[in-house]
């Protein structure tokens, strides 16, 4: 059951298949126009930002409606409704507030990706029952009450423990995307290495599906786009299943389409060629 969306607009998360791009722009942190639109209930602007991402190559749209001072429970559900009334695109519900996730799931058509659960007891107890009841997929962050660990084995341990909790609830491993955590190389020179090693361990040993927000890696550094794109290409070689990224940034989707092909991922050649043809027509 490694797909989300609806029968007519389905996105699959297949190990070895093409990388899934989750568009990250609908997040008030770092997108002022979206934040303003949320405050003014300007759904036209919100839907148009979602559409633009889908047209630029996002397979899934991440929706975050957490803005200090706004009622996240009502806002997230309203944004989900607005987007689904105009677009047939799978959604990723981005919140740590289980009530906001629940409300959004209750109004959403099709299957969603819940972003996210982590290793903390409270998070598992609140989020996983919703994933089970609404037949969703879920992002599992490799961190817990002890905070962030840099060593591969601690991160893999947390992933295994969350997968175990999922299994107990009848949520199969094929419904979980593990996020190995990308931290900035700016504050720890081993952050990129730790991410790639964790990715390899998760894919090769545990055979789980993975997801990562790439752009964190370059925080506080110059030439951020270059760094992000290079890490993205490496992550594709290391088998990353899905990425959370900005499809409107020049070059991001190019890297995904070309690296997918170079890494020999299934169906990638055809996808790369039609991507290139499409762009030449424009």
């Amino acid at each position, binding site marked *: 059951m490694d797909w989300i969306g609806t029968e007519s607009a389905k996105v699959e998360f297949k190990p070895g298949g093409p990388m899934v791009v989750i568009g990250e722009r609908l997040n008030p*942190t770092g997108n002022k126009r979206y934040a303003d639109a949320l405050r003014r209930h300007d759904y036209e602007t919100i839907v148009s930002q979602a559409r633009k991402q889908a047209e630029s190559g996002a397979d899934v749209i991440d929706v975050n409606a957490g803005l200090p001072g706004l009622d996240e429970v009502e806002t997230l559900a309203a944004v989900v409704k607005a987007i689904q009334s105009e677009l047939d695109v799978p959604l990723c519900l981005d919140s740590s507030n289980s009530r906001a996730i629940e409300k959004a799931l209750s109004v959403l058509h099709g299957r969603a990706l819940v972003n996210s659960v982590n290793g903390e007891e409270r998070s598992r107890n609140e989020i996983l029952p919703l994933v089970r009841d609404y037949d969703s997929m879920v992002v599992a962050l490799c961190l817990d*009450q002890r905070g962030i660990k840099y060593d591969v084995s601690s991160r893999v341990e947390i992933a295994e423990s969350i997968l175990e909790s999922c299994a107990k609830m009848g949520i199969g491993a094929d419904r979980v995307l593990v996020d190995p955590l990308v931290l900035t190389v700016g504050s720890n020179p081993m952050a990129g290495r730790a991410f790639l090693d964790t990715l390899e361990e998760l894919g090769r040993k545990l055979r789980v599906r993975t997801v990562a927000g790439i752009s964190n890696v370059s*925080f506080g550094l110059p030439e951020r786009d270059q760094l992000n794109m290079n890490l993205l290409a490496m992550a594709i070689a290391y088998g990353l299943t899905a990425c959370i990224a900005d499809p409107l940034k020049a070059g991001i989707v190019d890297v995904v389409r070309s690296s997918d092909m170079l890494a020999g991922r299934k169906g990638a050649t055809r996808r790369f060629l039609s991507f290139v043809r499409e762009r030449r027509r424009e």
Partner: protein
Amino acid sequence: MAGEDIIGAVYQAVLDGEEDAAGKATTAAMEAGLDPMRVLNEGGAKAIRLVGERFANFEIYLPELMLSADAMKAMMNVLLPVLKRQGTPQSRKGRILIGTVAGDVHDIGKNLVSALLAANGFEVVDVGVNVPSNRFLDEADKVQADILALSALMSTSAYYQEEIIKYLVDSRQREKYFVVVGGGPVTPEWARQIGADGYGRTAQDAVKLCEELMRLKRSQSKPEQTLVFA
């Protein structure tokens, strides 16, 4: 070496992010009998202010900023025991309890603010990241903090800044501490809305904000509205 030169060496070591050199130069300064507050102010603190400005202007980048912060920590490790022994009125500058609120494990910005406050002579108690609201309050009570500094880097965790202030109000303890907030998604409007005493955009702003609050406290006064340093 003359006093000026030793302090210059501390300044340079922090500026260049040379941890070992900063520790050695500070030790040399103490052996030469220099005033630790002078070493702090004219050496490390002056250097780290410049480092902060360069970072804000994109002249240097995060790895370099982190190295300077480490060098400053090395300096503080030498200075703190001396300051304590002398009973220098370090704690009178103010005691600040700082941490990242529940549900949020971001620590870079919080660590920078923490380091810069310490470099400017505040006594800083850093309680780490993902700190539940009740732990903030327990610790604040335990260390008798003057100021609670609450960091949130996610729009969804900023809510806990509000929760902590609400709790202080409900339990009639709001007057006990100044509460200041900061972090990526935090805005001056949000700070006002939740009734925080202050908002600082950058680490330097946070220092200015805390200095102003302590000045008010010493004159037994308090801000009439949320102070904004941005």
